[in-house]
């Protein structure tokens, strides 16, 4: 399914230039969908990352009561959502 994304003229020109450069590098045509995929992948890779072991520092920061609150809210949300859908 295709979709339309509103872009400014300036962005469109920048994307076109990048697309042309990549086509030259790759020696093959690249469509805008592929170009966006490449940009997204690169953005994800360049995102500052910290080791996942940092998660361990967050363990135990919440009281056991927090989980009870979550459980209660979760079930209430579910009930309300299901009632709406009836």
């Amino acid at each position, binding site marked *: 399914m295709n979709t339309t994304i509103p872009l400014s003229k300036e962005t469109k020109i920048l994307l076109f230039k990048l697309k042309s450069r990549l086509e030259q590098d790759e020696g093959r045509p690249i469509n805008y969908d592929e170009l966006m995929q490449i940009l997204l992948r690169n953005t*994800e890779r360049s*995102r*500052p*990352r*910290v*080791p*996942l*072991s*940092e*998660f*361990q*520092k*967050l*363990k*135990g*920061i*919440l*009281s*056991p*009561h*927090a*989980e009870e*609150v*979550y459980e209660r*809210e*979760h079930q209430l*949300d*579910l009930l309300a*959502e*299901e009632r709406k*859908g009836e």
Partner: protein
Amino acid sequence: MQRGKKRTFDTSKSPTDAIKEREIVSIKNATDCVLDAGLLLRYFSKTSSFLQEWLDANFFTKDANIMLHCHIISRTEVYYITCRDIGVEEAKKLLEKLDLLVVVHNESMLAEMAGKVKCAHSIALGDCFSIATAQMLKCPVLFKQERELTKEVVTSLQQKFGVQAIILPIL
């Protein structure tokens, strides 16, 4: 961070057969995984559990090469529960740290995908968005055990949406 490299999983800590070998293998080969809010909150809880040990042994390691994701609704759930428990400032700090560890998704296409999941299953909307995120990323989604996430639901999610939902016991 190097991605796509196979990881070694410690399965010896499993007190039950709740996480099947087949599921462990599939996570082992995954480069991405979605985490649901319930699972994150359980991990952040003071209550010591198998879930925490399992995540520490298999996911939250120094050399882990998996990319973790969550939907913005899960992020919101973590925020408000933390805010109620230990206050708004601590909730902000937690989210700042979480944002460095997890990729948060809010793509508009996920709304329709989550709607389809909700249409087919009586599960919480937040869970539907986690499932839709996994469907979009073509990766597994990890939940903590929840009463509505039955074996039948898990099988149906796989059949209808091609999503592998892995339920971690909260023992």
